[in-house]
């Protein structure tokens, strides 16, 4: 836990109004983004975000301080999202109305440049592939790949061992590779970087938050 986070945690613990506003401005967009990535529509994401923050305020007394405040909040948010998905059913396709009201500015496909059009199609394929994952696999992929959580932070947020995070990610990526194989292979044919660079793994992201 870095100094700013610890300071904010103490201020939140003291009940400072300004601290709540700072916390909300810092983590609020990410919580809403998490809801969106877990399959919620923008309207549903707003409702979920509000519920999550109210639940966080109410259960603030249960925060023991043994993890980052944002990690604790994301654990809460992920539990809410998983319960919501369970409640709504596993497959939650985006409706046309929702897609129109999505934060992504919609634009006529015919006016987009080919590269951007390709990106957009790939994004839709990726979201479709994410929908094929189980909730557990999707949660870990969203937290690690899309929110930049480390394995340890994923484990804290999902309350599972690090080894389980590792195996779930590995299995999830095998599924994603199967779903997105043609796209990935096509990209490999044209844009795959030098192979030697792939043997050096990325440095550990550690405290990404």
């Amino acid at each position, binding site marked *: 836990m870095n100094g700013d986070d610890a300071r904010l945690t103490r201020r939140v*613990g003291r009940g400072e109004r300004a601290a709540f506003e700072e916390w909300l401005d810092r983590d609020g967009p990410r919580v809403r983004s998490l809801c969106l990535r877990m399959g919620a529509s923008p309207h549903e994401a*707003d409702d979920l975000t509000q519920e999550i923050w109210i639940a966080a305020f109410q259960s*603030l007394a249960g*925060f023991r*301080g043994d993890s980052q405040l944002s990690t604790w909040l994301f654990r809460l948010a992920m539990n809410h999202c998983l319960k919501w998905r369970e409640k709504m059913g596993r497959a939650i396709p985006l409706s046309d109305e929702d897609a129109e009201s999505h934060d992504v500015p919609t634009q006529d496909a015919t006016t987009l440049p080919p590269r951007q059009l390709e990106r957009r199609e790939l994004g839709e394929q990726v979201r479709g592939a994410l929908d094929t994952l189980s909730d557990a696999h999707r949660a870990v992929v969203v937290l690690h790949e899309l929110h930049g959580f480390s394995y340890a932070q994923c484990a804290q947020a999902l309350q599972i061992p690090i080894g389980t995070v590792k195996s779930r990610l590995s299995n999830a990526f095998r599924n994603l590779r199967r779903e*997105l194989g043609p796209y990935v292979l096509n*990209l490999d044919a044209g844009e795959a970087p030098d192979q030697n660079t792939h043997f050096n*793994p*990325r*440095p550990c992201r550690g405290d990404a938050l």
Partner: protein
Amino acid sequence: MNPTQHERIRADLKAFADGELAPLARFFVARHLRGCPSCREELIQMQTLSTELRESETEVPEAPLSSDLRAHILENAPTTDAVPEEIVVRPRRISPRKAIFAAGMAALIAVVLFPTFSRTRENARRSTFSKALDTTDETGSAPPAFSSNAPGVAPAPPMSGDSAAVSSARAGSATDAFKTQNGTDANGMFSDGHIKSRVGTENETSTLANGALRERRGATDELRSVDGAEQQARISVNLDKPTSSDITVVVPATRAVHREGSMAVAVQNAESAGDDAASIVKNAGGFIANTSLETGAGQKRTAVLDCRVPVTQFETVVKKISALGTVRSKSLSGQDITAQVAQSGARRQTLAQELSIAQARLAEKEKSRKTTPYDLYQLRAEVRAIRMQAAQARAALETLQKYGSLSSLYVSLQDGITPPTPHAAGWFDSLSPSTQAAWSAFLTNARLPLQLLMWVLAYSPLWLPALIIWHKYGRKWLTE
């Protein structure tokens, strides 16, 4: 390639790409990747997929919350009364598995290293102890020495330290037994001692308790320790007789320690070795009190020498005589007789003063006309008795001083060593001098690595299972 290993590495590929593997597991995966094209291909695809996932999601920006939503959420923010007083930021806890693994490794290391350190400590203790036995203090008095061969002989440690308990019995006309408790001061004075002594010829019993000495037979002596810098003790003598007065007795500043020893040495020629031993004793300033040469079974001769050597030369003489042959047995002991010397000196001075007083009274009575012949007879008899006691005290003191300055050494030199047979030429002697030198240099330089290697191999039953367990489970634990 081992399929199980291949599958395990495949499961680790994602963590490897994310940089989340432990160093050892990363090494294994990297090594596997060098020889496995399919895993390399899978790694590339995973990285590409991960990149595409992130880039596709950047299309969805993390827009700030709408003002309505923000306001609505903040309306539900708790007030100061509703929040906990203080959120304690706790340090991150260590994983129980890691803690158990670290504790196990620490215990293993402790088990392996404990014998080594304990052996080293024991050697150091022995070295210090042997140095203490060999050292002669600056004042010239010999240090106490005792032999493990004669456990019944009580050691005579220097009377300095936190606690010392000494009891000894000395054969002779005077038998002293003293006991010291709670230690003495740095100069050996009886600062807090409790001493009981009994002199056989005088049939006196005195007790020193916390520095005070009391005589049972009417006379009261007080022995108090004084400042250590003065290195002397003041003895106040209050006799019941009207002529009594206080006197000051100077206690020897150095410890008087009598040394005794006996040793049996196997030599080639007992007769010539006896001559050599005699010359060693004489050169050290001692003398031979008694000597004998006997011939036993097998025509083996034994020369026995009863030597008296100065205490300061005792260790030197023992070493020189030990060098004459092979020592088969050796017993050395020491006895601190400082207290006896001090008491004897005090008694001698007391009697000398009593004698002078008695003689003065006799002279006064002889001049007086009122004195009857019977009174003169009584006074002369008293003076005679005191003079006799003073002579005995002086003799006892001189005996004690000689006893403390001379040590006794009984040496038995036995025929027992056969002349060494000519050294048989071995393979080493057949080497050229340069090869011998090279071989010796190799052994000298390689001794430590060889010892280390032997040490590691000797403890293999301990570390080998640990290595196997680590190879099988440790990596998995750490990566989890």
